């Protein structure tokens, strides 16, 4: 079976042949399976945003390919258009992109553009609004009357309403407080469970990645430094740190304990670490 999305040897150079030439991505390869939740981690300026703009064909690779269900999205125009609908992209601070007169119209913009019937458009828009916790009252409001957090939810609903096979979110929780972060992640998880959608989210937060993703892709200087399950990635905590990336505090506590001669398994959430430590106590 072919994977939903495959990225093959992707390299992207901005302004090639000019004094501003900059290699943003270098030989990046990975694939995303059905209904997987993947986190892309890395510092600012390490190619994360460049990478996700390739996934639905906004940017053209300098070399390498992006495949959806095994077909190169640049091999013909029809596939490129299909990629725009198959891969739903939510940019950073998407609340600045709202423009319609009402919340409902804004959410409906995407599905309408896909050429869906009015009924289907409305059904999807209402469902998406409900998933992100917008009330019926909110739907007739102007998006500009809403709070920042609500606006962000409207923007995300607009992409969910397109029912993409792969949902890509660039720092969906940036600038939100802990409760807002938890809500947004919760909405995305609910949507994913319901539609079996694959999700890629870009984050700076190792804690968010550790708690929510099944797979991690760590970008460093435009290349993939490591990829795998959270367990596989955080086991290499020292390497992450020497690349200037943080690890969850819990991992640091575990490595500190190991350096004191206490043998503990890798854990990356407080709950998991607590059970690892309890296990170690029972063992002794």
């Amino acid at each position, binding site marked *: 079976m072919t994977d939903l999305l495959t990225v093959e040897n992707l390299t992207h150079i901005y302004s090639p042949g000019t004094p501003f030439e900059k290699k943003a991505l270098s030989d990046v390869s990975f694939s995303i399976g059905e209904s997987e939740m993947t986190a892309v981690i890395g*510092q*600012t*300026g390490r190619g994360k945003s460049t990478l996700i703009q390739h996934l639905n064909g906004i940017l053209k690779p300098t070399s390498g390919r992006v495949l959806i269900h095994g077909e190169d999205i640049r091999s013909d125009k029809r596939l490129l258009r299909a990629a725009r609908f198959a891969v739903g992209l939510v940019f950073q601070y998407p609340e600045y992109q709202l423009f319609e007169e009402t919340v409902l119209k804004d959410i409906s913009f995407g599905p309408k553009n896909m050429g869906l019937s009015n009924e289907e458009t409305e059904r999807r828009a209402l469902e998406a609004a409900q998933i992100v916790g917008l009330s019926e009252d909110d739907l007739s409001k102007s998006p500009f009357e809403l*709070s*920042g*957090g609500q606006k962000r939810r409207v923007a995300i609903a607009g992409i969910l309403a397109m029912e993409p096979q792969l949902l890509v979110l660039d720092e969906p929780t*940036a*600038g*939100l*407080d*802990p*409760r*807002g972060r938890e809500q947004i992640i919760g909405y995305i998880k609910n949507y994913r469970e319901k539609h079996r959608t694959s999700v890629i989210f870009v984050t*700076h*937060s190792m*804690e968010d990645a550790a708690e929510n993703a099944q797979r991690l892709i760590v970008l460093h200087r435009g290349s993939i430094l490591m990829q795998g399950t959270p367990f596989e990635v955080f086991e290499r905590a020292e390497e992450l740190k020497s690349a*200037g990336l*943080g690890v*969850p*505090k*819990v991992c*640091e*506590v575990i490595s*500190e*304990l190991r350096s*004191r001669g*206490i043998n503990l398994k890798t854990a990356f959430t*407080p*709950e998991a*670490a*607590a059970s690892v*430590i*309890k296990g*170690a*106590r029972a063992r*002794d």
Partner: protein
Amino acid sequence: MIEFKNVSFAYEEGAKNVLSDIDLEIKKGECVAVLGHNGCGKSTLAKLMNGILIPTAGDVFVNGLSTRDEERLFDIRRAAGMVFQNSDNQIVSSIVEEDVAFACENLGMESAEIRKRVDEALSAVDMLEYRTHAPHLLSGGQKQRVAIAGVLAMEPQALILDEPTAMLDPRGRREVLDTVLGLNREKGMTVVLITHHMDEAALCSRVVVMHEGRIALTGTPKEVFSQVEKMRELSLDVPQTVKLLYELDSSLDLTALSVKECADQIEKYLRG
């Protein structure tokens, strides 16, 4: 330095109070974090601190001057400088040093004095080498440091920062935080840091937790963060080190904020 006496605030007459019965004293040289959800009133609290907003009831004093006294508002704002979340909204010039000089020029200072203050302010935030750069080409953390320098050039006694790191990546956050904490520790600058990052609050000398317009908790970071259940009730998080100990055994000493302190506790738990 900054004192709230029984302060309440509503944005419009008859509207619901955003803040109620706030009593708070911030002493000279303190570094205080104000923690809470969006909408808990923490930004309103910040804006009351230098007279951007005036209390509906009660009084706010800065260096003993009431913010109600319009004639002294100028002195109050020079004493307590404000830095906002989005530095892009706060930067006005196309060259770093001109931006930092903006407020001093407005005050009609001698150019030699301006030169001196701008250089000092830029070195205090470690941005002197960027003085002739264009702000829009800087990173988020660098821009926020330029915004801080702009306030420092006014030589305030207190710096009030309203979520200065909310839009920054981990490295930018670190830069801004190190700058602010350094000003507090090395120059005795009074700092009020409005934030929703627990780990930032943990680095301050005192934490004030706001909830629904009131002060819900206050104390040292250890005193505040060890109250795991209370913090959960306020739907706030605690640092992972505390959470880990709490999950392990809620009767443990939960004041561990650093990795080392946390590891010490666990070692005791395992070997005890």
